[in-house]
């Protein structure tokens, strides 16, 4: 009952933007209402899923959820890059799943202050964070790799024509993909928290963790994101190779 009251009180704060729109641009009121409604429904569905995962707290259920999350994220990433979903869904989803599971397990079991590392209360948010971040890095990395191979196809042929094996002939393109993954991340990390407190840190503080512990957990999660993004890109490129090149080594 108290929760409902609090939601109503929070909704009251929406009167301010609604009032502003009513005064200055009424045509946006409908769009704003639809956006808020969609956000509430999505958040509710997401929280119901998390609620179920935490309530049952079974490792197989959490893993099943992680597989589904990796597949859905893979579809979203591929639609963004405009690559055929049928061909690339397995490499991208596998990259997301493997990287999140490896680094997530390492964080949960060795770094984070989780009493039960694979308990859903820690497993779900950590894996969701890793998959979410890896999806954004994969969009940049995979699109760079694929478009660089197309733009510089001759370089790949030149290297192979001069006796370089396939792995070494694609390394310049892997390098470019890694650059595109790391350059914006480095730029972002260098200014994080200076002009706005990271949402991740806010969430940890709201959960009741002391600021110094929140700092440590945030740091561990950020490092985990960086490490798993490299694994996600490497696994995806490795598995996508047979779809990118034909049996003669030519870009398809």
């Amino acid at each position, binding site marked *: 009952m108290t929760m409902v009251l609090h939601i109503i009180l929070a909704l009251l704060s929406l009167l301010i933007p609604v009032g502003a729109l009513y005064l200055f641009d009424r045509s946006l009121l409908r769009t704003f209402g639809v956006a808020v409604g969609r956000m509430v429904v999505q958040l509710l569905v997401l929280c119901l899923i998390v609620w179920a995962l935490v309530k049952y707290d079974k490792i197989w259920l959490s893993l099943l959820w992680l597989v589904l999350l990796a597949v859905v994220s893979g579809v*979203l*990433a591929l639609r*963004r*890059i*405009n690559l055929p979903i049928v061909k690339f869904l397995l490499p991208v989803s596998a990259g997301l799943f493997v990287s999140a599971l490896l680094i997530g397990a390492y964080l949960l079991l060795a770094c984070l202050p989780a009493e039960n590392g694979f308990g859903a209360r820690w497993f779900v948010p950590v894996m969701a964070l890793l998959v*979410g*971040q890896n*999806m*954004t*890095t994969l*969009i*940049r990395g995979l*699109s*760079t790799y694929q*478009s*660089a191979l*197309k*733009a*510089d196809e*001759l*370089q790949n*042929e*030149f*290297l*192979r*024509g*001069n*006796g370089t*094996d*396939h792995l070494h002939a694609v390394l*310049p393109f892997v*390098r*470019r993909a890694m*650059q*595109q993954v*790391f*350059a*914006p*991340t*480095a*730029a*972002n*990390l*260098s*200014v*994080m928290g200076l002009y*706005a407190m*990271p*949402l*991740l840190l806010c969430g940890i503080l709201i959960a009741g963790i002391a600021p110094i512990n929140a700092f440590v957990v945030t740091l561990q999660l*950020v490092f985990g*994101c*960086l490490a798993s993004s490299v694994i996600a890109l490497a696994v995806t490129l490795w598995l996508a190779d047979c779809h990118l090149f034909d*049996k*003669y*080594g*030519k870009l398809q």
Partner: protein
Amino acid sequence: MLEVKDATIAVGGQILATGLSFMARDGQLTCITGPEGSGKTTLLRTLMGFLPVSSGFVSVDGELLTVKSSQAFRKLMIYLPQQIQLLRHQLKAPEAPVCEADDYGVWNDLLPKPIQAIRPVPLSPEEIYLFAEQTLQAAKDKQMIIADEPAAQLTPELAERMLQLLRSQVVAGKTVLIASRRPMLVDDADLIINMNQNL
């Protein structure tokens, strides 16, 4: 030495040459010539194992060259492709992109836009010549040179220097196989294979 015996060269179902037989010997400049679209580049790509022969065979020093075994043979080859001017990124790797902090980050929920790599700025004729020279010098131990239209992007003066460069490889006892329509190169070849006569 590279030998082609009774080879049929086809690409996409279109036969470009049938019953093609020749030997590109060590210490000899062999030139494949013919009009545009006659299959010179396809033949060179086949000789490197990038494409299979439809019938007949290709061998290098008596060993059969197949698509599967070609990678080992290509270790013996130097390859200068036709559009060599597009190899700027082989000369110098592209710089890391300059990014703004809000492009992407671990705090950003927005999905980034996909990246579209752009084609490299073409090399100038001088750069092409220097690149070819460096490639040849860096692989002195390789016995076979395959160059597709090596003078196509060069000025007449640089084309002359390119011919001298290739000739120096011939003198060193290497197998030099080129595809060209440029009379200066065709006339200087020890063996001419005309793709027009092999259909």
